[in-house]
């Protein structure tokens, strides 16, 4: 019996991908590490949404050491497969399971109800439960800072945005970026191309090409590949990358990048599971919580611009400034949020209009 249990444990560790040396495995036996499951939508790769979560997991493992034992399941589609993976993780004793894609939501709700003694955390969703918490990042804050840099650096005053799907998350990104740009350059204009895919490097590249051909000299994207950064480098236009620092792909042309930082959140949340104080929560963290940051600025960015951006970052972090502080004026010239007020989180998460400065019409989602 003992040998069987050992075998199962060894297998669990091997699958978990945490290369615990044999010696520390023994001590882990005594401490009974908390088993944590992570479910990713795509392969880990080396840049992008899933990669940022993986960086967060690694940071958490470093911080909590042998108090935790993690298992990663990558490339899980948003369908019945996800439900099966959540159930398997819960059944095999993973005290808490993190699901990091919007489409996992209903499956996670279902599995969470079936396993009341396990904890669940869903990223970017809106449904909570007795043992189901949600967390998300205020991506728009990083976007705004990128917009400030782009607004200062553009010569043609045309900024090109390769966008995935017309949903509030992406619309928020577009609006926030151009608000940043116009805060320092009222002539700046945003051109948007909807690729209608999260991931198709060929199409993303073609979209970037179309934007540059029409005069954009700063590009940004809300799609998952690194091709827009790579294309910008090749064409000699600026790029503000998304999700990850993509300097590897655009070593001289990346102005900065809007990054998601999950390490702190994972360390804190899993720490609570270890202490037994975890409760389901609704976290929407930004610069203040250390969940959103920007990559180091390109050396070509003048010192005064750099200082201004870093100041803005501090002000957003401290709450002195909001990327959507009133007046927020939509494309048609209608004031959506009056002067002196900040937009509410609720209005933000339902954003379905372009603000002034964005050209073209927003397709209905």
């Amino acid at each position, binding site marked *: 019996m003992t040998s069987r249990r050992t075998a199962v444990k060894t297998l669990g560790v091997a699958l978990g991908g945490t290369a615990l040396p044999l010696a520390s495995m023994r001590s882990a036996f005594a401490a009974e590490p908390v088993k944590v499951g992570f479910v990713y939508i795509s*392969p880990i790769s080396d840049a992008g949404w899933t990669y940022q979560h993986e960086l967060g997991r690694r940071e958490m493992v470093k911080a909590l050491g042998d108090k935790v034992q993690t298992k990663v399941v990558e490339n899980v589609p948003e369908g019945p497969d996800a439900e099966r993976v959540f159930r398997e993780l819960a059944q095999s004793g993973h005290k808490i399971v993190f699901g990091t894609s919007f489409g996992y939501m209903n499956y996670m709700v279902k599995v969470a109800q079936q396993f009341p003694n396990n904890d669940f955390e869903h990223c970017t969703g809106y449904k909570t439960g007795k043992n189901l918490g949600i967390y998300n990042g205020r991506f728009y804050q990083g976007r705004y800072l990128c917009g400030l840099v782009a607004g200062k650096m553009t010569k043609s005053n045309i900024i090109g945005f390769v966008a995935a799907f017309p949903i509030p998350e992406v619309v928020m990104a577009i609006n926030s970026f151009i608000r940043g740009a116009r805060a320092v350059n009222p002539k700046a204009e945003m051109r*948007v191309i909807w690729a209608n895919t999260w991931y198709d490097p*060929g199409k993303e590249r*073609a979209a970037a090409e179309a934007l540059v051909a029409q005069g954009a000299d700063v590009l940004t994207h809300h799609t998952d590949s690194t091709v827009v950064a*790579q294309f910008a480098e090749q064409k000699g236009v600026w790029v503000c990358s998304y999700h990850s620092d993509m300097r590897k*792909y655009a070593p001289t042309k990346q102005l900065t990048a809007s990054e998601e930082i999950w390490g702190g959140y994972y360390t804190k949340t899993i720490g609570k599971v270890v202490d037994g104080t975890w409760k389901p929560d609704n976290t929407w963290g930004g610069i203040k919580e250390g969940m959103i940051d920007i990559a180091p600025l390109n050396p070509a960015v003048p010192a005064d611009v750099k200082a201004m951006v870093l100041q803005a970052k501090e002000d957003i972090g401290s709450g002195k400034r909001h990327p959507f502080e009133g007046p927020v004026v939509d494309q048609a010239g209608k004031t959506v949020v009056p002067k002196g007020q900040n937009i509410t989180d609720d209005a933000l998460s339902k954003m379905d209009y372009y603000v002034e400065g964005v050209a073209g019409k927003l397709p209905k989602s």
Partner: protein
Amino acid sequence: MDTTILTSIFSASIVAGTPLIIAALGELVTEKSGVLNLGLEGLMSIGAITGFVVTNHSGSPVLGVLAAMIAGMAASLVFAIIVLNLTANQVATGLALAIFGVGLAAFVGKPYESVALPPIEPLHIPLLSSIPVIGPALFQQQWLVYFSWLLCAGVIWFLYRSRPGLVLRAVGESPTSAHAVGYSVLTIRYLATMFGGAMAGIGGAFMSLFYTPMWSEGMVAGRGWIALALVVFATWRPLRVLIGAYLFGGVMIAQLFVQGSGLPIEIPSQFLSALPYLATVVVLVIISRNLNTIRLNSPVSLGQSFRPDA
């Protein structure tokens, strides 16, 4: 609209159509021999990663393309053994090859995710490339673009003007008759299948070396399936493959340009994204509305196994 934008649209459409043309022409030859290989998506993925790895280590895109071609041939050889010798179901085997190829490429490509290749400079054809508007679009392209045109001419000549081409078509129409007059049906089908694999490999290499010089999992993004559909829509006519691919690429690129123009156009972008597929279907339905052309061009034995008696 100024001419540079027009040139960009033309040029980008040709680039977008090229991997489709190369892969689809290879599949056309395979299908003309009576073999249906649905594994294009997998073969293109294998070609894309092989071309990338070899170019990355050797520094030569020519070697990369050659290696992609060989890898495509090797993978289609496995397919050929299964469906020709073991007479397995071609549809099921082809689908398996598609899934297997995508997975294998992802597995092999894992360490190459972060590698970026230097972009390859287009080949300018002197004189022709200085024609206004169309010159830069047609004659300042990657050399595989010129290859795709030669390939189209070559396939037309081979199928309709050469003796081996006639034999190949005969095998696709009536393997029993071809066998009766002494041709080896299996040998010819092997060759045709491997040619198809080779071209799919090159089509994949075009993606990872010339279109977006990088490797990432899933980068072929359904182009294998589109190439497969093009063959049917083109009613097995090589020149129509070319037209279909450019039409598809052209409409896709044009809709992106329309969006990027920032004009207040009310058409939903989702509709615009579907437009290339719609336009291809509509045009090809129009050019093939004569049922006889479809009947005449569709290989009669397509997808059927052939077992020579004794």
